[in-house]
């Protein structure tokens, strides 16, 4: 029995309150049913992992997309802005747009 409780405690796919209730119910149950519960939760653990993996992949994709957006901003609006300054301030020709952009 304590084995069952230990096994249940190890799962992360259900919350603590649920774990307590399951352990209490399992107390009055058979080994066969308890094994079935462990199997269900083991599968649940795998599903949780899949959900988290999917989240991580999406987050990584989002980070890449944002990085691209900031790069586009650098190459687009920021470059244009700097060019505009250059056209105004002819004396600062040595500070070309590329030089400035390369710093960031």
């Amino acid at each position, binding site marked *: 029995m304590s084995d069952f409780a230990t096994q249940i405690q190890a799962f992360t*796919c*259900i*919350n603590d309150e*649920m774990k307590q*209730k*399951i352990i209490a*119910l*399992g107390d*009055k*149950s*058979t080994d066969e*049913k308890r094994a*079935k*519960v462990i199997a*269900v*939760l083991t599968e*649940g653990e795998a*599903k*949780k992992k899949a*959900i*988290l*993996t*999917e*989240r*991580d*992949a*999406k*987050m*990584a994709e*989002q*980070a*890449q*997309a*944002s*990085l*691209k*957006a*900031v*790069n586009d*901003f*650098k190459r687009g*609006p*920021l470059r244009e*802005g*700097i060019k*505009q*300054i250059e056209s*105004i*301030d002819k004396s*600062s020709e040595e500070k070309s747009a590329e030089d*400035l952009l390369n*710093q*960031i």
Partner: protein
Amino acid sequence: MFRAFSENRLVFMTSPAPEVTPTADAPTEAAPSEPKMPQQLFDEGKRNFEGKVAGAKELVTNLKSIYVDEKYGIDKDTTKDPALTTLFANLDTQLTELTTKFGEEVGKITDATQENLTALETNLYTNVVKELEGEKTDTLDTKIKEKTATTLGVEIKKVTDDLTTFAQKQEEEKKAASESAEATPKYEVEMANTLLQNKESGTYFDAKKVLDGRGKDFSILASEGGYPIHMSVKPGDPATASAKLVMDYTKAQYSQEFADKAAFKKFYGTINEADLPEPSKPAKSLTDVCNLPASKPPPFGGVKRTRELSVSVAADGKVKVEVKSIKFGEPPTPTIEIDLGKPIDQIKTVDDVLYPPGYGKGKRSGTETGTADGAAVMAVESAETQEAKWQRYKAELTKYETAMNKGDFANSPAFAELPVFLRKTLTADHINAKITEANGLLTQGNTLDAAGISHLDTVMTFLEKREGLILREQNFNLGDLPEFSEWKSIKEKGLQYGAGGKDIVDFQNHFSGAANTLHNHFEKKGATSNAEAFYVELTGAKLNFHGEQKSKNISGVFEIKVKGYEGKPIPFAFSGINPTDGQSWETAVSKAMDLCVQNDKMNDLVKDQVRDKEHMERTRRVVAEREARHEEKRDRKAAKAQEKGETFDEFSIPDYEGNSQEDIVEQIGKEYGKAEDYEIKQGDGEWVAVRKSNLVEKTVPARSEVIGTNEGITIKIEADAAVKMKELGMKIDGGKLMVNGAVAKYPETGKEIVFKVMPEPTTLEIRETDGKLVITEIFSDNSRVNYKGSTADALIADMAKSRKTVSAYQTEEGTILEPEVSSGPMATSAVA
């Protein structure tokens, strides 16, 4: 306008396919490197992104210090300061937006993940508890039976059989008792007798008394008028046809009081708790619409019922409901007719009017679909409460589960004739998943919100429609399944995706093999995003399915287009394509797509589209740069003119010039622009055009009317106003509400005022200071104007006075502020 239009040739292909030459520009694969974990990629990406944004922000700040603030005297020219101020502010805003968007997107992913995890947790818990609790009861029952059998000295089977017989006898006895005890309450008898004496003119009866007589608690408060429904008998046409019992609800108004929101929800499951007014606040008008359960006898079964309510919540949490009207059907009418089953001259007894066919006496069966009550009761009750519906669902689910647990659910060979996307909802796995889902929702019971209830109804309807299959009913006809009736229609009419058909994304879901063939063929290697990598999209498809079993073949058309290309898609027609595996429709569709992407003409036409799209983008960039220069020039001249106290005509520096309006429209079109984006007018002889968004807003005399009866009322942003703001596209930024419109509410009267400022994209920032509502309008050049006032009048007057492009008028919803601009899009009511 688009040269490629003339080149949109229809490419036609029949099977078998010709030999296909691989495309010349085969990509080279990058050398494999150590794979990184997604979490690591995210962290790195985030760090990089934040670093770059911070770097860019710093650069912008430094440039502003040099060129605007003239710090250290590196630059001393102040003539360009206003233009540069705007430039730097715009750049800074764009960078802030990048950060905000990143945060929002990450937030969305996190929220969706949390939702999935919670659903998983609930499902797991429900399944596990069911497993363990079922065990407990089973074990106990078995032990009791065993012990009884041992004591009696008989087999356990005998005890089980005896128990079954006992249960049957008990049921029969109960039925007989209920039938004999079926006595119509006194009030109903009185009511029926009055009706029999005044059949056609009819009589009013108090529905509350009917409910009381049946011991049904509808939380209806006693009031002088009761809950009056008019009842009369209408002769059939001809008079020998069945007469009708007409129930007229025109005067059926009554009030109900519920101890709390949970009790309210049992009756009004279609109304969200969030929609209820706050305690002690004015009553709110709400509409309760539902379809009555199909199990009710006609005409109530399945009919749409609409109830107009006025709901308020007292300080102690009691919910008071005023039912203003009850209507049935579409369009909703306050009368409903029940067939009495015999001509009017044969309507003679109390039972004739109280228990028409399908109702009543002697029919009490104790089941959830029983029709124990008479017509009058049904007319009053007329909907099962949420509670009763859930009981019914529970019973149905138990039945389905028992059937599915037999484990002999076998796919009919006929299923193999369906495409996979239709067939997959008929698998044991899918049906079991739906049962689990419904059970999970039912477990949440009264805590379910309206969306949850509606979802539960959807899942249950799905199962109910497949009941014959689930229960393996003998007389069940496969053709009755929604999947088969849809397939029948598809075979007759074909399957269309895109305009006029199913959503194009469904093609990806239904025929993923074919969709992947398209994407993978036109994939740009080394792209950083999917949007960039897969640059050709399917915009439409028509599939016709012919034959069956081993003689299947398909015909149809695919339409593909380069993403962002604004011309017509390229059609590819095919016919006589057989499944490559000899049986599945999916392989035939994949094969057709393969022929499409391998076709040389198709590839040439795609290349043309890529070229045209690039040309369009280049041209638009050039136009944008040119117009930006024009705008700058205009600003400069306008500023100079202002200094001298002169007026400046913006059209003196036009974006386009021409001999006629048509000439200008043509020029704009040639440069891939839209004529409606420009203001076109005749100047001194010549026609000129300026992009509307670059024109300085015109000022028109302010017009302010209405309002005025609300002196002394402070406007506050209420919680539900904030909800409405969200609907208007509100953005919460640093604790301030950023909106394109706003709603404020008068707490005492419940009246709302709606602010909507045009033309877009003006932003309103709304905050509360010392009990006063302050609205700041932020213009596209980042300049700001504040409006404030402690009354609606004051606020609107202030806004109208300063802005001069807004006026106010009253609508049913409240006061709406709108610009008085005669041309261009007018603001629509923000609460419509």
